């Protein structure tokens, strides 16, 4: 269990804008992903926890150990923090074999224990055949597994991953996910994983922290965050929503209904707690929750006529982009049924509507 309160400011420099990070979060066993665009302070957060960068103020507590306490003037050196760190480029020592890389991490332990641990890790991460080779002589997957093994061999209380799947091809990426799931199952270590890949958040993350400009924008499970982004900024960061300006015209908590005015059209939605009639809001709805059909006479309830601008092929679906910037994702078979349509309507299912 890690709990951290961090503050770090970088003044403006000729080559960089000023930046400030102010963050408070906790993470228990399992994978917590730090999600955010580049420059949002994700890697800095890891570096503050690992002790590579000194926070201006705050407190980092790992289980019962105080790693850093600004008020009390406590700051453990990186050597004493007991955090495994998997670096973005792995940072395996190029002049050592994989075995030596692992040994380096347990050099202080008695010889027999050292031996046992190294062999155990080599076996667990299927590195036995490559143990005598140097990092540049082994495959990308072996390098990756070795870097995770090296981070784990000292029995850390926390594992930190800095964009571990960045720049990997699809094959290596899914191998990595597999390894990580195995590690999650076998070790009870909390893991913090930095990524700007939303798929990765869902693939790996039990908890998700959304960072924006050095602040925590939202936290929760990936599914709840995707279902209900906290605000327009978060929705934009996730990058998978239609965001349409609208006005709330009616709210009925009793019947769990609402009416939302979008342009010239009025849509039915669920009740939106915390909003008032007349609020100017942004309707937020994922493209795959919408459907697009052929217009049949008068548009039905929650249907808006729209002009198709283009259809884009995606690996698993078709994305239809309509005038006004509304995107609709259709499964291939659904698209085949409507592909010759000239006159479109977009249907907004009542329950799919979220307002921000």
């Amino acid at each position, binding site marked *: 269990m890690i709990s951290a309160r961090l503050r770090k400011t970088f003044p403006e420099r000729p080559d960089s804008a000023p930046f400030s990070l102010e963050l408070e979060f906790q993470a228990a066993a399992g994978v917590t992903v730090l999600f955010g665009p580049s420059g949002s302070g994700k890697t800095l957060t890891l570096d503050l926890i690992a002790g590579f960068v000194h926070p201006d103020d705050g407190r980092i507590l790992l289980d019962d150990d105080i790693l850093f306490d600004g008020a009390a003037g406590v700051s453990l050196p990186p050597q*004493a923090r007991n955090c*495994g760190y998997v670096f973005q*480029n792995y*940072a395996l020592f190029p002049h050592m074999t994989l075995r030596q890389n692992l040994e380096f991490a347990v050099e202080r332990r008695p010889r027999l224990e050292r031996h046992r641990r190294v062999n155990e890790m080599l076996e667990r991460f299927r590195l036995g055949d490559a143990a005598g080779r140097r990092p540049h002589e082994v495959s990308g997957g072996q390098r990756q597994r070795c870097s995770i093994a090296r981070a784990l061999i000292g029995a850390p209380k926390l594992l930190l991953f800095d964009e571990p799947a960045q720049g990997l091809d699809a094959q290596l990426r899914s191998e990595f996910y597999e390894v990580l799931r195995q590690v999650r199952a076998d070790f009870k270590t909390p893991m913090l994983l930095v990524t700007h890949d939303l798929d990765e958040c869902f693939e790996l993350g039990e908890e998700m922290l959304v960072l924006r400009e050095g602040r925590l924008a939202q936290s929760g499970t990936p599914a709840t965050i995707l279902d209900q982004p906290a605000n327009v900024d978060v929705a934009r960061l996730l990058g998978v929503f239609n965001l349409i300006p609208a006005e709330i015209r009616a709210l009925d908590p009793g019947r769990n209904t609402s009416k939302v005015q979008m342009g010239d059209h009025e849509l039915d939605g669920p009740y939106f707690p915390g909003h008032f009639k007349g609020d100017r809001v942004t309707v937020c709805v994922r493209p795959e929750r919408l459907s697009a059909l052929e217009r049949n006479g008068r548009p039905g309830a929650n249907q808006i006529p729209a002009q198709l601008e283009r259809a884009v092929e995606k690996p698993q679906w078709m994305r239809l982009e309509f005038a006004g910037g509304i995107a609709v994702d259709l499964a291939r078979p659904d698209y085949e049924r409507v592909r010759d349509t000239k006159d479109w309507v977009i249907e907004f299912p009542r329950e799919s509507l979220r307002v921000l």
Partner: protein
Amino acid sequence: MQIDWFPLWLSLRVAFLSTAVALAVGLWLAYILANREFRGKEVLDAAVTLPLVLPPTVLGYYLLVLLAGNSPLGRLWENIFGSPLVFTWKAAVVAALLHALPLLVKSARAALESVDRSFERAARNLGASEWRLFWRVTLPLARRSILAAVALAFARSLGDFGVTLMVAGNIPGRTQTVAVAIYDAVEAGNTTLARTLVLVISAVALLILTLANRLNPR
């Protein structure tokens, strides 16, 4: 004609010793310059580099003042070793050191700083002390550049003339290095000796510099 090879052996011995001392001191200085932040850091760097640009006479003068028998350092030396330092071959080592050290510090600092910081972070993260980090990670990774710097410093140590002449003098068979011997031979009209020594010392330097180039990872 019988050629006296003593100057060559002396030069090699002087160069070897001054390079060894320069490596020990230079690595330490380079480590400090590359890793520590302190006031006057760039002044220290500049002071170490100074011998590269000052005229040999200035350096010789400084050394004479610093090491002569009546100076504190000179007296200290005499108390420890029982004989004065100046006008012995050991003074030639100090003279050569003055040229070897800047080269070594400059190159070693650059070499240490060029080691990817993520390796050092990784080592610290894995519990390595600063000492172990330096000897096991940073130094091995900077090894080739530092060896190249050592070769360069050695070659440069072979070539000093002015400072050596001022602090070690020109005593044939005792303090006469190759550079000084060549000057002597030319003055005395002994062209055979001069030519031979010139060719030999050039060949040795060329060999060492080629080695340095091959070592430098580029």
